[in-house]
């Protein structure tokens, strides 16, 4: 068994996949705001959607490091595709694999692994964004089921996903301890997808409202214990944030790659832009921030694998720094491209729009700072 070789093989594989299957569609799906179903199908066939699912449940039996590298490499060409993969794996597949009952794992994981079903996560509501504990969606016990009513917003993969991890209040009087996580399927009566958001970036991904009107969900679909849904959500987001950090890191790496090519080709005053000290210093700053972000992401992966107590803080630091790096690097990338960088002919224009969301979703940069400072000041 050769571990280093295994990662090398996987990295080669994912590089090839990103280059051949993801890159060619990146501009088009952004322009057309079109969900790349064909790529997702290919990802399912290649085993990428089930990368962290054990073989026993039809997955590829890979680890978190491979998954994170997949998100990063894919996002370096197309952040939309990275976002879809990240939401599917981090926010739906991973919590079912980690916290699900044997029955839930057998029912959901094989189809989530092969791409027959896509996964999503529904926590955010019109009045529960950063204040996620203020859940208005309610679940009322009725025999062997719960009846769910409420609305979720900004749900990634909505409309294309079949499996949704939905959070709802099972006991309002208990506040945070009254929230429960449910596995809801798209074809359950009363479940529907509402308005699709028109977004600044990651425009090929689907972001919609979810409406639940008297949706009957069997008790067998409760993920984790009743009343511990908020814990499930926070634990899921700890993992999810590493996924978003990887997405941000990928965007930054992609923007640097584009910029390095451009400044070596573009000539002004008879010299390539790369010969000017301003360019060199900008490139140095971009590369240094990217490397620092990569090291934070790697540390967060280790914390996750070792179930370290510092995971929440490490994941928050990785996400905070990587997403701000993505914003800084793409901004510099557009600047170094000059007027061309502002046009849609060059990928850096899209990358700058895509980068912004990484500072917002799965916990804004402000939330990350709350998590980090809470760990430091206690």
């Amino acid at each position, binding site marked *: *068994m050769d*571990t280093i*070789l295994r990662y090398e093989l996987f990295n080669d*594989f994912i590089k090839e996949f990103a280059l051949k299957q993801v890159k060619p569609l990146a501009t088009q799906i952004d322009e057309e705001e079109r969900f790349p179903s064909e790529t997702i199908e*290919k990802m399912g*066939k290649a085993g990428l959607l089930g990368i962290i699912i054990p*073989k026993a449940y039809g997955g590829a039996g890979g680890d978190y490091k491979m998954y994170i590298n997949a998100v990063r490499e894919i996002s370096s060409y197309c952040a939309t595709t990275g976002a879809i993969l990240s939401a599917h794996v981090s926010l739906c597949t991973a919590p079912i694999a980690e916290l699900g009952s044997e029955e839930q794992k057998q029912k959901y994981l094989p189809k989530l692994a092969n791409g027959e079903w896509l996964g999503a996560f529904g926590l955010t509501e019109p009045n529960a964004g950063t204040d996620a504990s203020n859940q208005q969606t309610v679940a009322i016990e009725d025999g062997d089921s719960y009846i769910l009513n409420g609305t979720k917003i900004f749900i990634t993969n909505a409309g294309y996903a079949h499996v949704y991890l939905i959070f709802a209040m099972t006991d309002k009087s208990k506040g945070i301890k009254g929230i429960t996580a449910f596995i809801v399927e798209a074809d359950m009566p009363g479940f529907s997808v509402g308005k699709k958001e028109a977004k600044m970036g990651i425009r090929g991904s689907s972001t919609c409202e979810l409406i639940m009107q008297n949706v009957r969900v069997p008790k067998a679909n409760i993920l984790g214990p009743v009343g511990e849904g908020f814990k499930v959500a926070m634990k899921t987001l700890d993992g999810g944030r590493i996924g978003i950090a990887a997405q941000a890191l990928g965007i930054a790496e992609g923007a640097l790659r584009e910029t390095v090519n451009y400044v070596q080709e573009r000539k002004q005053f008879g010299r390539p832009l790369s010969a000017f000290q301003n360019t060199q210093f900008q490139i140095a700053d971009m590369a240094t921030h990217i490397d620092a972000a990569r090291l934070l992401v790697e540390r967060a992966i280790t914390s996750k694998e070792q179930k370290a107590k510092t995971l929440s803080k490490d994941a928050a630091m990785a996400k905070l720094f990587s997403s701000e790096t993505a914003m800084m690097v793409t901004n510099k990338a557009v600047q170094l491209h000059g007027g061309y960088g502002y046009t849609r002919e060059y990928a850096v224009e899209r990358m700058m729009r895509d980068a912004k969301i990484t500072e917002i979703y799965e916990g804004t940069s402000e939330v990350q700072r709350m998590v980090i400072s809470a760990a430091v000041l206690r």
Partner: protein
Amino acid sequence: MKIIVCIKQVPNTTEIKIDPVTGTLNREGAVSIMNPDDKVGLEFALCLKDAHQAHITVVSMGPPQAKKVLYEALAMGADRAMLLTDRLFAGSDSLATSLTLAGLLKTLEYDLIITGRQAIDGDTAQVGPQIAEHLDIPQISYVNSLKFEDGYFIAVRQFEDRYQTLKATAPLLVTILGDAAKPRSLHVGRLIEATETESVELKGASDIIVDTTKLGLKGSPTKVKSTWNKVVDKQKNLLEVEPREAVKAIIDTMKKRHII
């Protein structure tokens, strides 16, 4: 049926960039891949395995890092993998390489040997045919399709202007064209599994049947005298004329240069 497929690890030349200052190849970050023609050759072997339950051995020669492409071959469906790696092999040209590979093949049983037509880093197309010569077995090069029927291999050989269908019995060596088939796509799970459960056998000069004086740089009659970058001289010819005349001038130039 016992099939041996020869594969080579090559730098992905389509990804290599030219350093704009020095004009040399920048190999840093270039991914090593299974030579595309060889991958199609492996696909041919896998199709024969699907239809006739063949046993596939993949062999390669190269530094220890070349294990990577052999694991990829195992993940695609090969049954056994062997890597010829030894300091004595360093600096081999196509003749020494083919002797070394033939030296290993002499220790193995086979009905069919498959090689790609040529490698993208050398483009010699010599190793496959030379192996057949060393082993003294028939060969069919430039194969576009291959079947096994009633004890015969039936190969369609592609020329620039025609096809030739040939029939041969085992043992046989074929070299496969890179566009003859699309290699099957890989499942990540198989890739991970291959590195967990399978292994690549390493073979050195003492494990094979070969005259060791003919190996490596010593055994290579091809000497590289010098290498240089081909400079393409872009000729600029600026005409400031009316559109109609400009079109005529462009067409005339293209005709003169036999482009149209």
